[in-house]
């Protein structure tokens, strides 16, 4: 089994990369391939079980977009064929139509999904997140300059229970199309959500197996879930 991390030299913010380390601990036989900006992605030429993209700086979003653009058609085909892809934090914006800044400047992105992100660099949105994925509670954190709008036909990854979806007025959070999954949730999403990690393990072909340090992970998850469900607890920082 091969897990590919795209462009970790620039996609490495907020502890996101620990998602892959957590999967690697669960699947010690997995090979983790790190693809740099100047290297051809492995998923184009060989069997890859999961492609991962993490949070990055705004400048890095442009570098990553430019690195992926030559492979856009192949990427679309792989998504149609069911290649599992996970993007966390602002990596989600790589796959949407464009990012619009406060001054009206529009930055085109890969355009796989018809969403527009509106970005305000002077105001950072910080919040907790509680959502649902199938029968699971999903917990997470948001800390971002932008929100996504539009995309009425773009299926969501999570259904929001508390906090903001793609934007504060929406309950749909992230994008899910076949096995492509993207979310504004950042950081160690899989470490924070052991039930979702078990699903990810099945999705990438690792079968039913425990997550690393399952008891400790579930203890932390359960405590946080109780906090996030507490109606008296504030959600936006």
């Amino acid at each position, binding site marked *: 089994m091969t897990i590919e991390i795209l462009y970790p*030299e*620039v996609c*490495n*913010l*907020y*502890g*996101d*990369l*620990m998602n892959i*380390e*957590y999967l690697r*601990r669960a699947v010690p036989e997995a090979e983790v391939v790190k693809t740099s*900006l*100047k290297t051809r992605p492995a998923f184009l030429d060989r069997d890859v079980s999961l492609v991962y993209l993490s949070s990055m*700086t*705004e*400048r890095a979003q442009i*570098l990553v977009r430019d690195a992926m653009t030559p492979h856009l058609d192949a990427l679309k085909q792989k998504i149609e064929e069911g290649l599992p892809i996970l993007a966390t934090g602002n990596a989600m914006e790589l796959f949407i139509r464009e990012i619009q800044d406060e001054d009206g400047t529009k930055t085109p992105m890969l355009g796989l999904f018809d969403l527009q992100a509106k970005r305000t*660099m002077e105001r*950072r949105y*910080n919040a*907790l997140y509680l959502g649902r994925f199938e029968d699971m509670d999903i917990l997470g*954190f948001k*800390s971002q*300059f932008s929100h996504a709008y539009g995309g009425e036909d773009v299926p969501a990854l999570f259904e929001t229970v508390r906090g903001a979806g793609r934007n504060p007025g929406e309950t749909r959070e992230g994008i899910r199309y076949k096995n492509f999954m993207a979310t504004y949730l*950042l*950081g*160690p999403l899989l*470490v924070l959500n052991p039930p979702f990690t078990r699903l990810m393990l099945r999705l990438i072909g690792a079968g039913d197996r425990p997550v*690393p*340090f399952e008891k*400790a*992970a579930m*203890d*932390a998850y359960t*405590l*946080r879930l109780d*906090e*996030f469900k507490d109606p008296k*607890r*504030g*959600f*936006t*920082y």
Partner: protein
Amino acid sequence: MMRKIRFLLALWLGKCARLALRALRRNATFFPGVVALKICPDFLGQVDKPENIIAVTGTNGKTTVSNLIADVLTDRGHRVLSNRLGSNVAAGIATTLLYGSSLFGKTRYETAVLEIDERSSKRIYPYLTPKWLVVTNLFRDSVMRNAHPEYIANFISQAIPRKTKLVLNADDLISSRIAPENDRVYFAVDRMETDVVECINLINDLQICPTCSGELQYDYRRYHHIGRAHCRDCDFKSPEAHYFATDVDTTDMTMTVTDKQGGRVVYPLLSDSVFNIYNVVTVAAAMREFGLTHEEISESLGKTKIVETRFNARQAGNVRVVMQMSKDKNALAGSRAFDYVSQLPGEKEIILMMNCLADQKNWSENTTWLYDCDFEFLAREGISRIVCTGPRAKDYYLRLLLAGVPEERLRCTLSELDAPELLEYRPGESVCLFYGTDALDLVYKVQAKIVECAEEAAAR
């Protein structure tokens, strides 16, 4: 005319607020400025300012560096206005300037040393032109407030006046590139025995060439992105230092600073930590730019002491109790503190209570920083037990397991006051308490409990 009246009203009410708070024995370093800025939003622009303003900013070391600069200047006979006791955001700077001015708004000082929060740059620099801006470094800080260091570097670059001369860290390829049009000098520390080439930290914020996005090759690296590097694909490289620290000797506690004008003087080290080695060369560079001689700076530095609020140790029973502050929600502070304490001589037991209790009161701490922080240093030999405590104890516990700490070394309790009882207090060892900055009353209670437990263990 109305503008002037409003300014004077803001100044007087600010001064009244300060007097009232001082009468109540409060520090009065923030609220008077809030009052002044509320009444007169451009108060910072209107108030008369000292001719020589040295501003100090950066992620780490700005408080120590600005205090040392103020101490050196005072020792050399200058009357210095500073915000050393108070706030470093716009209201704090307004408080400092209103204190330093007469009833009609004229400054009573020639020189000011102002520590400035880097995130407050856009609220301060449009109204205040420092003659020099000293930038200690830029690292990843709070995910919620500071996002990432490139964002903060842009923030400062966009705000700092073009006339300001920059004093920059050549070993930090993020902060050394701010405001490229401004006049600048650099300081650096020569290669040290403990330097490496490959990054051993989780946070490594500059891995590609900032000019061409090519492959960045580090010649040596101190930690994280601090070191000296060049690009393999273009002619980009670390800048040459105008003030260069060499021959760092942590036994004799000295180092030598040379400068491009040919100066070469031995300086006292104020502590053996790498951060404090940087602090001394930073002060030397800033003060040389101000106009002091190396001999004057070195002599005055020799009379100063760093207030070790972040680290102190005392004996209790048969153990040494080490207090190590680690700014909450700050992965880099945690990494540096873990690295330092884990290498202290002898056996160690540790309590981790770096939870952000202020966040916990109202919502729930964003713990993503735990996975940027090098908890792996706590898996080193010599650490026999780690107790995770506070509302996020279970998160610390899981993080430590992932860092490779054997489960049998770990204990976990949500109650901070129960944590000291979970240690063993073996004779000769150090008991280290890592704590955040926002719950000091509770920290002191836990410290007292540790001392009590240590003395009981010694008596048994």
